[in-house]
């Protein structure tokens, strides 16, 4: 016994949206990398297609850690079996807003709404729950969204 106090690393949940907008997978991997470098443990939750895009892109799991089914993580948080320190919700459609509002209500995590796509401004106006918004018009080119993320540095919070 050394008497040292051990602290648990911070946890982060990335809630993926429908992967039809290409920047999602790229930004998710980028964010996972930044979170890990900052000492956080990221978990990804999405539907089968969104998760598979990441798993195939990172076969040796250099970036990815735990990957979960989106419905399963909602059940676990709702039933208080699990929670996270930070929750990043990827939003490019109304369903994304719905998931972000849900996470804001069921989780104690600090919620970040990552908004992108052609209609990012309209979606941004629909946010009426507590969260930090990170938004950019990004569809194929991830750089505007990367820049918006870098300005907020949510991994350092």
């Amino acid at each position, binding site marked *: 016994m050394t008497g040292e106090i051990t602290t648990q690393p911070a946890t982060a949940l990335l809630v993926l949206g429908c992967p039809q907008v290409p920047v999602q997978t790229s930004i998710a991997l980028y964010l996972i990398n930044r979170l890990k470098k900052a000492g956080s443990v990221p978990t990804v939750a999405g539907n089968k297609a969104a998760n598979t895009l990441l798993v195939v892109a990172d076969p040796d799991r250099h970036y990815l850690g735990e990957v979960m089914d989106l419905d399963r993580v909602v059940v676990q948080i709702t039933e208080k079996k699990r929670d996270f320190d930070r929750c990043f919700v990827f939003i490019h459609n109304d369903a994304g807003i*719905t998931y972000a509002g849900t996470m804001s209500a*069921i989780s104690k995590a600090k919620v970040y709404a990552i908004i992108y796509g052609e209609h990012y401004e309209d979606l941004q106006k629909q946010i009426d729950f507590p969260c930090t918004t990170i938004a950019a018009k990004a569809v194929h080119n991830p750089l505007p969204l990367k820049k918006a993320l870098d300005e907020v540095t949510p991994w350092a919070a």
Partner: protein
Amino acid sequence: MGCVESMNYEIVLRDATFKESRDYIKKTYAEFRDVLPGFKVFDTHVIGLPPIAIGLEGDFVIFPFTKPCHGTFLLRVEDKEEAARLRALKK
């Protein structure tokens, strides 16, 4: 939410935003209950922006079901016991 997909449901509304779905329930059904995200309807934890309206019409329960790629659907499912359980909730 695999159980929803195996239910005998009718789609009441599709291609609407979540807020439009909530307004539809409140305008269309004389009876409804407001619940919070994560509330269990059948065996499903409902997703949505609070408050989530659940419609009641006789033995039918009308509730929103959101999928990341397909948006929000309003589903109508007949279940006497579930309708009675929801009806017993405080308004």
